[in-house]
């Protein structure tokens, strides 16, 4: 696939995620959504790119995310209406209204819900991959990755040469505590010392594509530097000058991307209104 087509495919997914989150922000602000919500805006290129790459490889990996997981669900084809219902606390939601934003579960797309204990998806994902030998992705924040049991599980996954991909969505923050306050080491170095293929890159789709050759062939860790646009939970912003990959790609890809953005925005708005009407 040509790089420009690839980027547009990724942008489509990212646009779905971003427009979805913008609606979430709106409905959080007007208190239609009343539960704690963790939006992925700013970080959506990670799951969007990996989902396009997985599709290209004709794989439907097992997905183990944590609390910030809307974009994983949406990128990998989760039903949008069911996610809206979930955020509204309805029984028709993808997790029967019980999971809310932080614990999205979907059998259809092989996505497993998270329990809220940061990093638990590390060992659980490794176990699932070991038992099924299915391609598996464990998505972790830069903080969750520090959990002891994550590191232990990672080492074991390497020993067993599992077809697993550890994706560290590194937004540099644990709620508001910066990485440099918490540690002086990098996840990719740890993974390398576990004899895994490991990379530190940014969330540019082409950078991710470039290193994707060994995905699901052996254990791989990618630490992807990214930015969280909104607060840890909720609708506020910590800063107005955070680099926004979405805007950057939109500009770079030009008119086609603008059109994709506008079309998807309209669709998502309509979907939200419809779900709110029939609830």
């Amino acid at each position, binding site marked *: 696939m040509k790089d420009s087509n690839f980027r547009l495919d990724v942008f489509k997914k990212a646009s779905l995620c971003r427009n979805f989150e913008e609606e979430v922000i709106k409905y959080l602000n007007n208190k239609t959504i*009343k*539960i*704690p919500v963790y939006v992925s805006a700013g970080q959506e290129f990670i799951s969007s790119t990996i989902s396009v790459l997985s599709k290209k490889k004709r794989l439907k990996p097992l997905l183990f995310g944590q609390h910030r997981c809307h974009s994983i669900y949406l990128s990998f084809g989760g039903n949008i209406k069911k996610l809206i219902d979930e955020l509204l606390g309805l029984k028709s939601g993808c997790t029967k209204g019980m999971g*809310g934003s932080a614990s999205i579960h979907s059998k259809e797309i092989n996505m497993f819900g998270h329990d809220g204990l940061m990093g638990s998806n590390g060992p659980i994902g490794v176990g699932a991959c070991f038992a099924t030998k299915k391609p598996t992705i464990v998505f972790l924040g830069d*903080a969750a990755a*520090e959990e002891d049991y994550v590191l232990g599980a990672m080492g074991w996954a390497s020993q067993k040469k599992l077809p697993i991909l550890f994706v560290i969505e590194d937004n540099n923050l644990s*709620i508001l505590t910066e990485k440099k*306050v918490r540690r002086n080491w990098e996840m990719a170095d740890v993974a390398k010392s576990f004899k895994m293929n490991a990379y530190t890159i940014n969330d540019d789709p082409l950078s991710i594509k470039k290193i994707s050759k060994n995905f699901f062939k052996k254990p791989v860790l990618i630490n992807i530097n990214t930015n969280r646009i909104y607060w840890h939970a909720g609708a506020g912003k910590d800063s107005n000058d955070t680099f926004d990959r979405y805007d950057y790609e939109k500009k770079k890809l030009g008119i086609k991307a603008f059109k994709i953005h506008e079309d998807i925005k309209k669709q998502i708005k309509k979907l939200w209104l419809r779900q709110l009407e029939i609830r």
Partner: protein
Amino acid sequence: MAKTVRDTIKEITYKHLKNKKSLILGQCLSAVGWVGGTIPELREKDGITELSMADVANGGIVVGAGLSKRRPIYVIRYQGFNWFNAPIILNYACKSKEIWNVPCPIFIRGIAMEGSIGPVAGSSHHSIYYRMPGIKIISPMTPKEYVLSYKNFMADNDVYYISEHRGSYNNKLELKDYLSKDLDLIIFCISITRFEAKKVREKLLQKGIKIGIANILWIKPFKIKKKWIESLKKSKFGGIILDDDYVRGVASDMAYKLMKISKKKIDVMGLKDRSAGFSKKSDNLPPQSDEIIKTILKKMKLNK
């Protein structure tokens, strides 16, 4: 002006760090509202110690700090995280004095809160600690009780688990027992349920039903006051224990002890035996006043 529980904790912590040159350890202590405003805005050089996200190891790091006799404070932002934080504390710090004669005093602040926060973060989990040796557990809900908890810790060399609740942080009032020898029933209440018990007492009094209140501060050792038993023995319908933890733990064990001493029937109410979700509908809240009243009225009817 009376102080809130929040200010009391903050002041105690400030003095503990400044005067005793101690440490306070935990995750995200300084960045997000200073743990509900309970931590003084000091720096690392003053003892504010940001830990990484390694919850199990963090518990161990705190145990090591405890061995230094600096009497560290450890903040566990949601009590449910104890499933990861507690193992090294319970199996090393709490046993160290007995096995090696090396005390390891740590002041653990486990914080409870509930409402749409999912299956692991919410509520109190003091029962995890309760069944293990070498620990003292207190659940202060008032400023004076908090001071007392801290003073006991400082005069002692055991591990203390302080079962806090965010719902008490604004509280300035002391909560007193209501006991006499002509009561219909006595509520024994723990943590945040103590505020609910007060409401129940007032509502039922309007119906002519006399409810006593026994505030449980000391969970372990479970300090049973003589007056509680005297009133319980004379009560018409026995008692009920309210907890903010699952009932198959502290609450059931307390009920057993109280029943044994008083020969009166004691019921228990706490979290239901199911997981909480992230929405209001799927919450698993501690017993609320209406629910408690219903249970009490049913109990009275059955035992008439």
